[in-house]
Structures are given as structure tokens and as C-alpha cells.
């Protein structure tokens, strides 16, 4: 077997727009093989556009995208054969049975006969669907359907599995099954997994993650390294006069206190000790003070200056 050293995904100087709206500004990104990689970002951040470009659903406008060493614009067929895609919207034919859905999928990828049957049986067994093969998809629960989607996406043994918001609509149990499955295909089949998510706790399970905001990459690293880069534990202070208090803290302690969405935030390695000093220095000016380990949300705030859901609220007109 030839060792293929090209990255699973390699993106350089990528830009994309829908009419007037710039969905991706200028993006460089590389995902090595064998990783579980998360694209995290608020809605409208550009992650779905990137997903569509990687899955060859929309044509490349500007920049370079290589998937498994093949150029998505020029070698589309080579890319398509090697990637498995699970869309956020269901892609199953509800009027057909589970097995029929998989058979059609296999045929579209050039599989047939005994080899297709073997592979199909195995996918069904692996996802616990063997006794459901003859059931119409419309009779299955949402969680079951998602499993069929996974079986469908993995049927042709792709080297890269792309998933768009895979845990949307799944209950916690099904979510954890999904992650077990992703870990398994990575470990046993050497499949690289790239998924988009708007859930911070989901991105935390990935090996590495990229945070996209307003069409740009704002962070790219392992979850731990990103958290470590925040600069320590975080303090969130609720107060009636956030701007004054933040200014006072900066003046008195020379700490980088910032106002985010009406609260004062700061990250310090010595944050636990700081709580007492703050109460002493500004008696009566703080309603609550919250001390926490840095989360990916803190990373997001540190890199963008606003809260993770900020844009969504803006978009909703709140």
C-alpha cells in the first residue's frame, strides 16, 4: 500500500460570497489525516459554507481547496469518491426501506453485487440497524434515521467523513453513541472526521478545532491549548455600572478587564485569589462574581471580543 502523506484537508486563501454577503473572507487551514476535527462557530460564521465547499456541493470561487490531495475544482470526481458526507438535512428516501436506501447509495458509488451486500450488512450491524433493514425510513425515529445516514455516508468506505451539525436533534444518549462511532471509525478504519458544530461542548471532544467567526479563522488548536491560551481562570462580574467598574479595575490593579455584553470579564492565572481583593476594593459595586475554568466560550470571547451567541441575537434583532 502506498503511503499517502497529503493532508486530509488543505485550504489556502479561500474566499466565498453569496451575492453581496461575504461568507468566507480569507481562510487558510490544514487538517492532517486521522484527526477528528471540528469547525466551530456561530451561525453565519462561515462553517457551513466551508462544509459545502469541501463536500463539492457548491463550486469554488476563490482560493485553493484540496481534499485528500485532490483539487476540489479540477478533480471533483476523485474527491467525491473518497469522501462520505452526512448533511444536516436528512438525505434518506423516506418511502424506501433502510436496505433500499443503502443499495441505491452503493450503486451511485459504483458498488454492486456480493461486495455491496457484504459492506451493507456490515454497516447495518455496526450501527445496530440489522433488524431494521426492511423497515421504511418514514417509520423510524429521528435517532435511528441519523444512524442510517451515517451508514449511508460510510458505505463506500470513505477516507474522509464530513458531517454538518451531526448532533442537531439528537438526545444526549444518541449524541454519545455518535461520538463513540466517530472514535471507532477513526481508530479502526483510519478515517479522518471533519464536522461542523455550533455546540461548544461538542467541539471540546474533537482532537483539534477551528473557530470561525464572520468568515474568518479566529482560533485553531487543540481544545486544551486554546483554553490554556486564554490566560487563566475567568472572572465574570455582574454589575449595574460595567464600564465604570472595568475602568476602575484596570486603574487599580492594572488587569485587562473588559466589558462583554454588560458584564465585566477578566482572565487571570490568580483569579481565585483575586475574588477577595475585588470585593474588598469595590464594596457594594458588584452583584455577583463568577469564577470558572476557561471554556471554549472564553476562548471565543478572548479572540473576538464578544459572546458566542452575540451575532445570532443581532441577526434575530434582539
Amino acid at each position, binding site marked *: 500500500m502506498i503511503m499517502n502523506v497529503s493532508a486530509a484537508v488543505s485550504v489556502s486563501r479561500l474566499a466565498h460570497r453569496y451575492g453581496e454577503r461575504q461568507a468566507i473572507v480569507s481562510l487558510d487551514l490544514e487538517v492532517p489525516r486521522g484527526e477528528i476535527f471540528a469547525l466551530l462557530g456561530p451561525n453565519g460564521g462561515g462553517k457551513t459554507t466551508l462544509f459545502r465547499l469541501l463536500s463539492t*456541493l457548491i463550486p469554488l470561487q476563490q482560493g485553493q481547496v484540496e481534499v485528500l490531495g485532490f483539487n476540489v475544482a479540477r478533480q471533483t470526481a476523485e474527491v467525491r469518491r473518497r469522501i462520505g458526507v452526512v448533511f444536516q438535512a436528512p*438525505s434518506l428516501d423516506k418511502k424506501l426501506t433502510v436496505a433500499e436506501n443503502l443499495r441505491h447509495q452503493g450503486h451511485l458509488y459504483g458498488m*454492486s453485487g456480493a461486495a455491496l451486500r457484504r459492506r451493507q450488512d456490515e454497516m447495518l450491524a455496526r450501527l445496530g440497524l440489522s433488524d431494521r433493514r426492511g423497515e421504511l425510513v418514514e417509520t423510524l425515529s429521528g435517532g435511528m434515521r441519523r444512524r442510517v445516514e451515517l451508514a449511508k455516508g460510510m458505505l463506500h468506505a470513505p477516507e474522509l467523513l464530513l458531517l454538518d451539525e451531526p448532533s442537531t436533534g439528537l438526545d444526549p444518549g444518541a449524541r454519545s453513541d455518535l461520538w463513540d462511532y466517530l472514535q471507532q471509525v477513526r481508530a479502526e478504519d483510519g478515517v479522518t472526521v471533519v464536522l461542523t458544530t455550533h455546540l461548544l461542548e461538542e467541539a471540546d471532544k474533537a482532537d483539534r478545532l477551528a473557530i470561525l467567526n464572520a468568515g474568518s479563522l479566529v482560533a485553531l488548536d487543540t481544545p486544551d491549548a486554546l483554553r490554556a491560551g486564554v490566560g487563566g481562570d475567568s472572572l465574570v462580574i455582574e454589575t449595574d455600572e460595567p464600564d465604570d467598574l472595568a475602568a476602575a479595575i484596570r486603574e487599580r490593579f492594572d488587569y485587562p478587564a473588559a466589558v462583554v455584553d454588560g458584564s465585566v470579564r477578566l482572565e487571570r492565572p490568580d483569579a481565585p485569589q483575586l475574588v477577595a481583593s475585588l470585593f474588598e476594593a469595590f464594596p457594594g459595586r458588584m452583584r455577583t462574581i463568577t469564577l470558572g475554568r476557561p471554556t471554549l466560550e472564553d476562548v471565543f470571547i478572548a479572540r473576538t471580543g464578544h459572546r458566542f451567541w452575540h451575532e445570532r441575537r443581532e441577526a434575530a434583532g434582539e
Partner: protein
Amino acid sequence: MSSVLETGTETRAALQTRPWLAVGTLCTRELVRFARQRNRVFGAIGQPVLFWVLFGAGLGPSFRLPGGGGDVSYREYFFPGALVLILLFTAIFATISIIEDRREGFLQSVLIAPTPRWSLVFGKLLGGALIALVQGLVFLALGLTVGLKFSAVSLAAITLFSFLISLALTGLGFIIAWRLDSTQGFHAIMSVFLMPMWLLSGAFFPADPHGSTGAAILAWIIRLNPLTYGVAGLRRLLYWNAGEASLPADLPSLSVCWLVVLVFAATTFALSWQAAGKRTTGDLL
């Protein structure tokens, strides 16, 4: 080594682009879906049969072929037109499903499969055309009860000819449906474009180029309508032995009908293929 890895390696090694397999599987899917939705069968065949029986009975007494031809009842005259109407309804209902495919997300996974776009289009059209053809043949069997007679050769020719008409009409439906995102939109186009196309194909009333100005204009529209040649060809094939006298005057010759229907089918296929190459925002769910 686990069995998982074995089938994975086996699968990867065997992957290749097989467009005809894709055509076959998409076509089969159409047939299976159709068979599972019984009301579609009834709707596509019920209405034309009803038309044929009722119009045959109601308009029969006042019908006379222009040019004063032989002794042709309206029910006989209308039979090829009713057959084309069945093909039209079925073909159109079959292609409406492209809108559902898109809305339900199925299309998205087909669009990124490693198979050429023409195979997607052809699989869809072939499936729709075969469904239309089967229903047409059921109606043809009904014709036996009113004295239509076919030889094996004429039946084969009728089948092939009906298939080409069906393919042309599914293609037409595909071109329209590809751009639409709701079936309501399709119904509007059905009533302002497809039904008139059928009405002005010589299916419902014969062209009368020597009549009044209005009739002469209609005769021209009928002459320019490709579906006219579908109806005319079927009329000639169905009344193979009946002699010129029982056919409307100015009916195009059979070879012209074959040619026009063939070109019609090839054109709608080509346009469908072209349409499917364009991405629409509806691809993105």
C-alpha cells in the same frame, strides 16, 4: 485484522464510476416509489379515462371530422389524445418528485455522488417514462374493449412511440421542476402551459386550416406544437388498417411524426441535462 477493515479495503479498491448503474438505480427507485403510492396510479389513469368516456359520450353526437372524412366516432377520434393525456399526467407527476427530492434532501446526496450529471437526469427521466408507458399500456388494453385491433408489430411500434413521447414529456417536466421549489408552482405551470399544449395537439379537436381565421391560427399553433406529432403518430399507428378516409385531413405522415418525437425527446433531455448542471440555491438545505 478486523472484518471492518477488510470490507473497507475491498470496497475502496473496487470503487469506480459506473454511470449506467446509477441510471438503473435511480430509475428503479422511481418505479418502487410509484408502486408504493397507489393514489398516483389512480390519479394519472383515472382522469383521462373519465375524460375519454364522458367526452366521448357528450361530444360524440356533434362531432364531424373536418373535410367530411369517413365514419369516425368521437370516442375513436379522442382515443390517441386520451392516451397522450395519460402519458402527460404520469410523466409530469413523476418529475414533480424532483421538487420533493430536493426538499427532502435526497437530491443533495445524489448531487455529490461520483457519477456524471447526465446519469442522474437520465435515471430520473427513464423512471418517469417507464411509469407513464405502463399506464399507457393499461389504457391501450381498454381500447380493445371498443374494437381497437393491433398486430404484434403495431403494438411494438405503439409501445416504442409512446415511450419516446413519455421521455420527451418527462424531460419537459424536469426542465420546469428543476427550477421550482414548490409543487404549487408546478400546478400553475401545468394549467397554463401543459394542458393547453395538450389541448392544441389535435388530441381534443382536429386542426381545421380551411375554416375561419381563428381556426386557421389555431391550426398553425397545432402545427408548431411538437406534441401534435405525438398524437398524430399514435393516431396513425392505432388506426393502421383503417385507411386515410378515417383520419383527419392534413395529418402529418408517420415518418415525420417519428422524427419530430425523437427530436423532441432528445431536445428535452439535452435541456434537462443542461439545467441540472446549473446549481440552484435550492440545492442548499
